[in-house]
């Protein structure tokens, strides 16, 4: 139980990552794969953000306490937050590029189901051989 209390946040992050990874492996629909990739990455962000927490800490923005002095802390660690801002931006960029390619695939092949696309490609290869 004590291990659960101290590590539950990490485990939930891992659980969410794995849900995303399962979606990437199991789903044949490309849009679903893209969504699952996003979920996988949010799991990682959750892990980093959990890393930043300090017991009794507060939001990493300096502020004045009642006495008019700078609140001495502890503040949560801003470094992982900053890294995750960058990573979120990267992940939305990857998502946008993925969606752009998927839309192109729909126009070129008429489907976005991975197995149907593979069938079409196999047929095309067989057709050009004959």
């Amino acid at each position, binding site marked *: 139980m004590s291990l659960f209390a101290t590590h539950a946040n990490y485990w939930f992050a891992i659980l969410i990552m794995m849900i995303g990874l399962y979606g990437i492996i199991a789903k044949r629909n490309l849009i679903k794969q893209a969504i699952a990739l996003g979920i996988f990455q949010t799991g990682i962000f959750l892990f980093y953000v959990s890393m930043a927490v300090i017991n009794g800490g507060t*939001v990493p*923005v300096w502020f004045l306490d009642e006495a008019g002095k700078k609140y001495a802390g502890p503040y949560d660690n801003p470094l992982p937050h900053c890294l995750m*801002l960058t990573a979120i*931006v990267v992940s939305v960029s990857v998502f*946008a590029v993925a*969606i*752009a390619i998927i*839309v192109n695939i729909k*126009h070129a092949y008429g489907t976005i189901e991975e197995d149907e696309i593979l069938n079409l490609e196999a047929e095309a290869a067989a057709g050009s051989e004959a």
Partner: protein
Amino acid sequence: MKEQLVLRVVAKCLIPPILIFGCYIITHGELSPGGGFQGGIVLASAFILHALIHGRATLHQAFPRNLWATIATIGALIFAGVGTYSLLRGGQFLDYGWIVPSHPAKGEPWGMTLVEYGVGLTVCSVMVLIYDMISEPAEDDPTVDEDSA
């Protein structure tokens, strides 16, 4: 959706505050949560809202697509330019201190503000571009004429 009176009125009321809020978030990013990226998205949402209600063609009349691409490029150039400026003055890349060489520690906030605006410009225009592009009809769709290009 041009006939939806309620939507149009509400949008008209909402868009100016959203724009102001976006600028506030970018500028105030050093003092409170927020920054160039978040502010840029808020700004973009105002334009996307306008385009959703009045159609993309209306948006293109005021802000053609190439303008968005240019703004996005300029935003990234501002960031890289601030870095290069310090490099040209003889310092390290991205050393904001060189913006006010007589008092380097005062140059830092200047650099941060400039950089945040660069990020904001790029993010805002790229988000509008993304919306614009994903709403683009297919290349071989015969039912659409070429007005949107």
